[in-house]
């Protein structure tokens, strides 16, 4: 049997790319396929025992299937482009450089470099596994051949570790004081448009005479953008209403999902948006701006905001927290959408896609 070797930039907690690689690894092991993960950067907080990618040159087998997770610029791309093994690309999406340009020219240049790497690997790639149809279109435009959409392999057991008492208490206090808790989870980065979330919160509090709180869970990509968000919040009189959590533990994250009233996403560019899946799993009503891959992940399980302006978002927020019929409807729709995006469904799509390369992955029913 051929080995499946994965390459990811890093393997750290909370990173969707790394988590997807881990779940693929787990699935393949379940089918007795020999698998291993290599990383570009071995970090202290790394999960699992992955080693640096350069070691692969000494450990390779000519019939290996190499699976490269592409989401950022990486020396791995250049390393793999000159190798002869079968190459599979898992495309998580590259954020367009223009989102970073004013804030961090190095990051912007990095995105351009990543796109060039993605483009260069097109001819070298046997199979592409974009995580959404939105990503698939980008690959087709870049000249990729066979591609199969395999959504993120989401592991709901991550929320089984329990919750954080302090966060639970803080959210409960807000609720008891009549303050709604709104949540967004994701790196503080311009394309995720946390500045628009603050503007929407301002509109919500102003229009409905409320004192709601927006919890922004995630680490900042740059000090400048974090400073801007804090300035905007202060300038709009929302210093006490915007909670910048920075990094959180799994328990804290679980508490935010369980204790919030609604999940609001105004992101302008997402290749998949795992937090939407997490919110659905935690039965948290969602309103999200209809951009990039959002509508694919959300389906009919939340309000798709068509116009990205503070008033429209504020009205959608009000509906999410006060319209009981809507909440009941979304509760049912989230269950339907989660059925479509279950771990098993995505894993089967992965196996089907890889079966042409490794027949042992063909679905058992089909073999029988």
């Amino acid at each position, binding site marked *: 049997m051929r080995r499946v070797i994965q390459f990811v930039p890093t393997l750290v907690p909370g990173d969707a790319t790394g988590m997807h690689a881990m779940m693929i690894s787990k699935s393949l092991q379940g089918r007795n396929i020999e698998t291993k993960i290599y990383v570009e950067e071995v970090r202290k907080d790394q999960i699992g025992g992955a080693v640096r990618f350069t070691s692969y040159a000494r450990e390779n087998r000519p019939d290996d299937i190499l699976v490269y997770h592409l989401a950022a610029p990486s020396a791995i791309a250049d390393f793999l482009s000159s190798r002869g093994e079968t190459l599979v690309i898992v495309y998580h999406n590259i954020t367009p450089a223009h989102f970073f*340009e*004013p*804030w961090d020219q190095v990051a912007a240049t990095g995105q351009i470099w990543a796109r060039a790497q993605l483009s260069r690997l097109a001819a070298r790639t046997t199979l592409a596994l974009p995580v*959404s*149809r939105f990503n*698939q279109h980008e690959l*087709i435009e870049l000249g*990729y*051949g*066979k*591609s*199969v*959409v395999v959504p993120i392999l989401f592991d709901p057991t991550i929320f089984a570790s329990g919750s954080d008492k302090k966060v639970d208490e803080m959210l409960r206090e807000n609720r008891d004081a009549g303050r709604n808790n709104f949540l967004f989870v994701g790196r503080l980065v311009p394309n995720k448009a946390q*500045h628009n979330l603050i*503007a929407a919160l*301002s*509109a919500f509090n*102003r*229009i409905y005479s409320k004192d709601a709180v927006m919890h922004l869970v995630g680490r900042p990509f740059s000090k*400048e953008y974090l400073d*801007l968000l804090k*300035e*905007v919040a202060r*300038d*709009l009189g929302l210093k006490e209403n915007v909670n910048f959590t920075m990094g959180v533990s799994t328990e804290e994250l679980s508490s935010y999902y369980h204790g919030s009233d609604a999940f609001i996403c105004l992101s302008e560019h997402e290749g998949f948006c795992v937090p939407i899946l997490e919110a659905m799993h935690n039965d948290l009503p969602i309103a999200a701006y209809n951009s990039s891959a959002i*509508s*694919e992940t959300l*389906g*009919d*399980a939340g*309000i*798709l905001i*068509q116009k990205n*302006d*503070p*008033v*429209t978002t*504020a*009205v*959608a927020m*009000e*509906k999410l927290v006060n*319209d009981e019929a*809507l909440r009941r*409807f979304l509760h049912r*729709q989230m269950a*339907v*959408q989660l*059925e*479509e995006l279950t771990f098993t469904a995505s894993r089967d*799509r992965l196996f*089907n*896609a890889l079966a*042409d390369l490794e027949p042992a992955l063909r679905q058992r029913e089909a073999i029988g």
Partner: protein
Amino acid sequence: MNQSLDEPANAATDENQEIDFLNGASHAPTSESSPPMNVQTNEFMSKIAREIDEEVRRKRAQGAFPPAFERRLKTIFEQLVPPGAGNSRKDFEALLRSSDRAAYFDIDVPIASQKPGVTRVKKLLRTTQAWYLNYLAQQLNNFSTNLMRLLYVFDSRVKKLEDASESAKTVRPSGTFLKPYYVTASGLDEKLLSSMGEPAGRVLIADCGNGYLVNHLNEHGFDSYGVDSNLESLENPVVTSLDLRWQDLDEHLKEIADDALFGIVLQNTSDMISPVEKLDLILQARRVLAPTGNLAIISIDPRFFETSSELLVQRDLSPGKPFAPETWRYVLEQLEFSNVSTTSFENCHLTMGYFTNNDAPGD
């Protein structure tokens, strides 16, 4: 063989369902026994979307989130984003100043340290290496100073070029040089209202001034808003809760998504811009109009400019001359507007065109 479908082509039935799902067309399992669920889902979600739109209109009409506050939000962001975030002249100048500040290389390395003795070591290093660093820094500073001087000269030349090309294009009726002229004519508002048909989406009033037409349409069930590049005109709106925005029309149109508006009313500056800009404006308007959308052009009668010295000055200093109604009609018909009609008033004309085909060749 290149294959961009989701699954191999020989796996028929299940695969189609998966593709449907990924298209977002159907998220529940599709079978013959379950179509009502999808129909119900779509109906319910459409109802929610309608309720949100109506509530937004209601709240805006109540003045719950005044346009002045929205303008303030925009200003806050503009002030806070780093230099170069936008593409305006102001952004460029801010970036130039920030580059100038960063262009000086300082060899006076800070030597303070909380660790005992380290300050002395640092000082020693700085002293012993000063001759070498100074030599390098002098060359770098020389280079960066010249580079910055070059950029300033370049900026000044580009600015002259921009000013020349800008004035060749248009003289904006703003500031003290030119005053905007807002046409009023008896019966114009009623004719506009009857020509627009039943309200079926948002209507943009360009060069809205004090919002008279915005208010008039809103009072008759339309969801309209105004844009004007002249801040003074916006200061005293006829009704404070109107959605009147201070922005250039061309900038505003660029921000609007395709097919987003039910109607557009053009007036004032659309008379005074060059023919090329007029055509560009109509093309932009056509892009943002929904299928079956309305375009209304209120144009000042060219002869009316002879009646006052103020208007004569404005006409002579503007790069474009007002079109006669026949010219507007010809332009709209050429750009595939249908049922183009003109109604004349004492000093202006109202030309209406209906856009029915958003997939016209050449779009």
